[in-house]
């Protein structure tokens, strides 16, 4: 079959949605909150994948989906009891199905070593029902269901055709299978045969008589004309009744007691899986697929709009026009509208973390299987929305942390029992929104961090001096040090050469931070704080050495106008400030960035009290604070490269560029000796004028 690439792409996109629906449904079944509709949704997902895959001749996928579907069908029609073992196999099958879809997309061969055992397990559930039915279905069903790619089948009514050929019908050489095949092409059809008039004994058969009556339900037809067309010229050789189907009537299950005779007589159409299952009013949410690049263009344009709006308001203020009150009211409206557009556009990029979390369920399941631990992953706040890029780039760090939590955090069942804990470990994955940030927490109820072990390893690896005096918190943070790994032997689970430092780097790259709290014997919690969006940031506009810069509000605890008495020298160059009895180091931002140290007295300057990973608290000395506003973040790396201490740049209302300071990097890198001489001061001067 020659197929259009874009249709194939659409199929894979569809598959993603179907897999999500499948995973969701299976999870509900596992939780026990499933109802009939859930079961149907799960079945439908697998069935739709199979149908569409059949249309693309993706045999591997079709074969697996088929077996999966057969088991699901048995569950749905209560022929199979749902128990723990079945649920486990179903979930694994769901994972494999997702893998096979990926394989088909990448055109890589399926991993037989993984697929086959599950296939065999699925088969084992089928037992006596499976075989006969299956052989029959195998012959044709893919073709028949191939049309069912779309999720939304129209709610259009259908027709019930009741059809009993007379003996003349057969005598004239007509074949009922052809008629039924023609009917099946008209729409989604379910065929039922009434064999009650069949004589029991073979000897009683009258060769010229027709014993069978078919009842064919066709959904998706709005008029019975096409049906009548099929039966043209047959009016007098069969008994025909066509009735409109009410949606509630389309119960299309094939009765389980269909005799053997039926499946033999009608190999082509028996037992198509119950397709027209009742669907409550619950319509699938309509979504719009848009090329992300278009959205990004829109976001950029809106960013410019915001900048333009602040340029205009700045210009107007400078113009000192008479009687400007109304003008400013209009300007406020403009500002409001621009913000609204911005928020709307940002919302397009926002996605719930749910699919990400669902992927973690699988990771957790596999990790638990591999380590022989019993772990329950509890998820909360899956509806929390985050920028698409954040969701995508969180997948790797989260995967790693989940594996870590199961591999290192949660104890083996026996140890848990010994520690008087429940045998099953609990792993909580939660997302929530807190004042402009997203907080994601991964909490296990395991043994907690072993600080003395961490210390020993850090000393062994040369990360700290043997006699270093570290606070508990500092020891915990050693986990994030590059080259640190507590596992004494490399397990194939979490010891894949990536350490927590990679996790931390990934989070930092997203503009977030990560923290650990641990309670020995009761578990460890990692919390990741992320900005809601990467494109816009709340910033404090400051000046340093004549340059305008931006410091992210999220890292500023407070601003301080220092008093002479609070500042004291610490050694030759360093200074500390006393705040509420604590002495906090002062870092001169100008010096850190390689500018000339400010000539201003410390008391004429402003201190920003900030909190970073490296230092719990420090005071960043800047010359002046201008304003506090939202800025559009522009990357520096595209045309220039990464700069230590600078996370990006933004364009201010006057069209000039202001660098965005990365407080973590600025405070953790040592000050550089000023390498610039006079010309640079001049540049700086011109630049800020």
């Amino acid at each position, binding site marked *: 079959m020659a197929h259009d690439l874009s249709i194939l792409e659409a199929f894979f996109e569809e598959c993603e949605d179907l897999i999500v629906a499948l995973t969701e449904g299976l999870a509900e079944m596992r939780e026990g909150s499933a109802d009939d509709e859930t079961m149907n949704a799960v079945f439908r997902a697998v069935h739709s994948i199979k149908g569409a895959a059949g249309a693309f001749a993706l045999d591997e996928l079709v074969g697996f989906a088929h077996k999966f579907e057969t088991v699901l069908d048995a569950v749905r029609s209560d022929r199979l009891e749902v128990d723990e073992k079945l649920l486990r196999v179903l979930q694994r099958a769901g994972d494999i199905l997702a893998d096979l879809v990926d394989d088909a997309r990448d055109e890589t061969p399926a991993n037989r070593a993984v697929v086959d055992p599950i296939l065999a397990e699925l088969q084992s559930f089928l037992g006596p029902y499976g075989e006969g039915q299956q052989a029959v279905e195998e012959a044709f069903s893919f073709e028949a269901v191939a049309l069912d790619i779309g999720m939304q089948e129209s709610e259009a009514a259908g027709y019930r055709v009741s059809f009993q050929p007379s003996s003349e019908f057969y005598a004239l050489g007509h074949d009922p299978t052809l008629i039924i095949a023609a009917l099946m092409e008209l729409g989604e059809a379910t065929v039922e045969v009434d064999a009650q008039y069949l004589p029991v004994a073979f000897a009683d058969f009258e060769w010229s008589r027709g014993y069978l009556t078919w009842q064919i339900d066709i959904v998706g037809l709005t008029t019975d004309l096409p049906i009548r067309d099929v039966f043209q010229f047959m009016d007098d050789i069969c008994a025909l009744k066509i009735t409109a189907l009410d949606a509630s009537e389309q119960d299309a299950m094939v009765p389980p007691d269909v005799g053997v005779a039926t499946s033999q007589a009608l190999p082509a159409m028996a037992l198509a899986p119950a397709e027209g299952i009742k669907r409550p009013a619950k319509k699938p949410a309509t979504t719009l697929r848009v090329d992300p690049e278009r959205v990004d263009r829109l976001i*950029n344009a809106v*960013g*410019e709009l915001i*900048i333009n709006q602040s340029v205009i308001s700045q210009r107007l203020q400078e113009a000192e026009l008479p009687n400007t009150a109304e003008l400013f009211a209009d300007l406020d409206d403009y500002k409001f509208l621009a913000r609204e557009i911005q928020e709307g556009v940002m919302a397009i990029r926002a996605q719930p973390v749910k699919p990400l979390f669902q992927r973690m369920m699988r990771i957790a399941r596999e990790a638990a299987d591999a380590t022989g631990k019993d772990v329950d992953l509890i998820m909360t706040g899956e509806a929390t929305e985050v920028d698409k890029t954040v969701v995508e780039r969180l997948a790797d760090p989260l995967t790693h942390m989940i594996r870590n939590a199961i591999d290192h955090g949660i104890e083996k069942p026996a140890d848990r029992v010994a520690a008087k804990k429940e045998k099953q470990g609990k792993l909580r994955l939660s997302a929530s929104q807190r004042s402009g940030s997203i907080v994601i927490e991964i909490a296990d109820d395991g043994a907690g961090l072993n600080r003395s072990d961490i210390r020993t390893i850090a000393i062994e690896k040369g990360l700290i001096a043997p006699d270093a005096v570290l606070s508990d918190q500092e020891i915990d943070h050693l986990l994030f040090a590059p080259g640190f790994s507590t596992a004494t032997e490399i397990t194939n689970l979490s010891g894949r050469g990536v350490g927590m430092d990679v996790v931390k780097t990934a989070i930092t790259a997203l503009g977030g931070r990560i923290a650990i709290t641990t309670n020995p014997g009761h578990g460890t919690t990692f919390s990741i704080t992320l900005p809601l969006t990467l494109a816009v940031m709340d910033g404090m506009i400051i000046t340093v050495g004549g*340059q*305008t810069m931006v410091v992210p509000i999220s890292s500023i605890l407070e601003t301080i106008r220092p008093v002479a008495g609070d500042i004291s020298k610490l050694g030759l160059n360093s200074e500390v400030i006393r705040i509420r009895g604590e002495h906090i180091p002062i870092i001169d931002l100008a010096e*850190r*960035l*390689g*500018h000339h140290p400010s000539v201003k007295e410390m008391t004429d300057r402003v201190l920003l009290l900030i909190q970073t990973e490296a230092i719990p608290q420090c005071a960043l000395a800047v010359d002046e604070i201008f304003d506090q506003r939202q800025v559009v973040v*522009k*990357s*520096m790396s*595209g*045309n*220039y*490269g*990464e*700069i*230590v*201490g*600078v996370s990006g*740049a933004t*364009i201010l209302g006057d*069209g*000039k*560029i*202001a*660098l965005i300071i990365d407080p973590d990097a600025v405070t953790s890198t040592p000050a*550089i000796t000023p*390498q*610039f001489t006079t*010309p*640079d001061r*001049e*540049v*700086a001067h*011109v*630049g800020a*004028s």
Partner: protein
Amino acid sequence: MSEQADAKLAKNLEFVTLVTGGQNFCIEITQIREIRRWSPITMLPHSPPYVLGVINLRGAVIPIIDLAAKLGFEKIEPTERHVIIIVAIHDAIVGLLVESVSEIIGVSQDMVRETPRGPEDETTRSILGIITLGEEMTKIINLSTLSPKKDQVAA
């Protein structure tokens, strides 16, 4: 070097001539995006001396290189009279600050010669070839040696 090969193959080449560090240079016209007046520059920390900083080019952040300093001449004292040539180096957009831009010259490929061999320095390393114009000559700048991105990686 591919640029050199390209220059030899093409029949009619056009170059923009410019003056920096008091000398004549030229850049192939297809590599130039636009020529702008000087505009305020925001300086960058931790940057090599020849990187003046960044400017806002219609919403994009573009680094500005002092071409004279990069070629080993004295640093420019930027004034309003200076000109910024916006060029594309691989996939990055970079501005070159120069003293002035003179004219566009049409050149056939046989007028493009290899750089005469001599002691190498900062300037000759950035020269792709020379063009003789009667009595005078001008030097073709090899833009790929100018990318600030490359320096960042090396550092």
